[in-house]
């Protein structure tokens, strides 16, 4: 049971006995899709809770306070839940000057955009809801939709604060998307793939195989990416457009209650999402970085996938991978929180200058350097990477083989595939 690679396969193999045959693969895929969606909604809902609590504790420590201590035992770990319950109970206000349809639907846009990013994120080898071939492109496209919700919130509130906040926020996010995408392309050049599962799999076998250390340009690109990602999640020191801890509150000035909290759920979820992307692209994804352990986990996964080894060991290897992945991403979020409570805020013109005059040229230079790096190595040292074992240890083809069974194919494809094989023969 543990050996099945996808939930749809699991349903097909073990539950088909209990359901009438006429429901067939459609029913199977529908149930699998619902299970994926429910799991992801929980990731999406729990992460902000944990990170808001972490934000309070870390900011407390940095400011020589204790942070929440009372709600839920010693460390106040139920604080976020208590806040959530309070926010649900608040009145759902809509100002008379606002365009109520747009005003009410804007928070959902923000939430849906950052939630949809989790669809294509691989949490461990093969643990991905949609193993899309252009996963990174889809993530960047979906995260760029968040801006629209913010503009709508700012415009439809019918308030000057919201309008200015929304315009600044939108200008900031749209500008920072450019260096974000260019920096994300630097490891893609090294990997030769936009499939996040493949990119993660290629970094197996030691810390030197992480794309962070693939070339000097990727090393710098990681830090540029992190700065840009912090800014595109509108986190301090780039949060002048809202400045929720001191000033009026930017685009969400007029919001209250649960709709207000949706913006924050979206913000913390997209913080986690960009840190997950950083973890897959630069920090080895679910790989531990310890060569013997990585190889053992890889062997266990493959053995259970091919049905030779113990299936539950392969499953546990994936659980460990997901744990490693979540740890890396959470460390990224921790650094973002740490930065927020350490650095002073930039003025809005400084925010824009930093992006357009510095980060965009820097990331273009890194992109160019990363494309030239393989040529340089090939001419100067006659090799493809600086590490002892070249890309042969982690070719795209090998990883694709191991992922083929994990890729959910649509029922239409599944039914057509035998026919296609027949025509080839």
């Amino acid at each position, binding site marked *: 049971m543990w050996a099945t690679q996808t939930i749809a396969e699991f349903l097909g193999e073990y539950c088909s006995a209990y359901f009438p045959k006429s429901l067939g693969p459609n029913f199977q895929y529908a149930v699998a899709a619902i299970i994926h969606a429910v799991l992801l909604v929980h990731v999406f809902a729990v992460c902000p809770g944990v990170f808001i609590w972490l934000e309070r504790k870390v900011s407390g420590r940095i400011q020589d306070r204790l942070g929440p201590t009372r709600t839920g035992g010693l460390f106040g770990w139920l604080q976020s839940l208590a806040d959530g319950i309070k926010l649900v109970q608040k009145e759902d206000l809509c100002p008379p000057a606002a365009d109520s349809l747009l005003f009410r639907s804007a928070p959902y846009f923000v939430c849906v955009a950052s939630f949809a990013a989790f669809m294509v994120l691989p949490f461990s080898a093969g643990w991905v809801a949609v*193993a899309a071939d252009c996963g990174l492109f889809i993530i960047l496209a979906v995260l760029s939709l968040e801006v629209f919700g913010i503009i709508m919130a700012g415009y439809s509130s019918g308030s000057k604060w919201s309008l200015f906040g929304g315009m600044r926020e939108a200008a900031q996010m749209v500008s920072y998307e450019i260096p974000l995408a260019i920096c994300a392309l630097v490891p893609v050049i090294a990997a030769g793939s936009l499939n996040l599962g493949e990119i993660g799999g290629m970094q197996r076998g030691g810390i030197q195989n992480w794309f962070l250390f693939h070339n000097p340009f990727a090393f710098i690109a990681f830090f540029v990416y992190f700065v840009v990602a912090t800014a595109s999640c509108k986190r301090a020191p780039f949060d002048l457009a809202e400045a929720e801890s001191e000033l009026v509150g930017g685009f969400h000035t007029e919001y209250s209650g649960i709709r207000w909290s949706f913006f924050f759920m979206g913000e913390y979820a997209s913080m986690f999402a960009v840190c997950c992307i950083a973890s897959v692209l630069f920090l080895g994804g679910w790989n531990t970085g310890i060569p013997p352990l990585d190889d053992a986990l890889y062997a266990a996964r493959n053995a259970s996938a091919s049905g030779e080894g113990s299936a539950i060991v392969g499953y546990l290897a994936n659980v460990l991978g997901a744990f490693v992945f979540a740890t890396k991403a959470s460390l990224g979020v921790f650094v973002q929180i740490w930065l927020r409570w350490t650095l002073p805020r930039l003025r809005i013109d400084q925010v824009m200058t930093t992006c357009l005059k510095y980060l965009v040229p820097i990331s273009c230079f890194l992109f160019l350097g990363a494309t030239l790096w393989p040529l340089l190595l090939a001419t100067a040292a006659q090799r493809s990477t600086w590490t002892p074992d070249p890309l042969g240890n982690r070719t795209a083809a090998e990883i694709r083989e191991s992922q*083929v069974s994990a890729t959910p194919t649509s029922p239409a494809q599944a039914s057509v*595939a035998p026919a296609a094989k027949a025509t080839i023969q």
Partner: protein
Amino acid sequence: MNEPLIDGPSILFLIFAAITCLSAVAVVVSQTVVRMAFWLVLSLGSAAALFFLADADFVGAAQLLIYVGGTLVLLVFGVMLTASGPYLKIATSPGETILGAAVALLFMFVVFSAVSGVEWPTDNLTRSVAFNPAGNTLRPLGLSLLGTRPDQDLPDSDQLSPGYLLPFEIVSVHLLVVLIGAAYLARAKRRSAI
């Protein structure tokens, strides 16, 4: 095993096609520009979903990135920066409505007759699955932008087909010229203002 009357992808197709069409109608009917943008987001977003449904991940993501994330944001920006009142409204006179409806119906008739007049090949899906197994949708596209079409080269020709290299290059150079031109125009204006 008897075939079900309607399968899963078809249900999803009907849902998303309905959302696309209904919100497209809502774009025309609504009066406020930003509301139009909102309905257009729904319409274009469901069109992207239709692309995803047809296993065209790249086109779907490009649809989201360019139309929803780019063009519509630009549209709302334009409204926010230029509107004199709080909510910019566009009122259509009855004559314009009739004229627009006539043009739209005529266009729909042309498209419909063109689409229904073509004998569509039924083995498209078979061919695409044969060359892109297991959701491998991006690599053939990238290869054809680099100038080879593996799906056309492989079967019975000994010659490489050109792919989309030339159009790709032309579009790239065109976009570069437009970018430089836009930057130049923006810069010149600011200098004269100072």
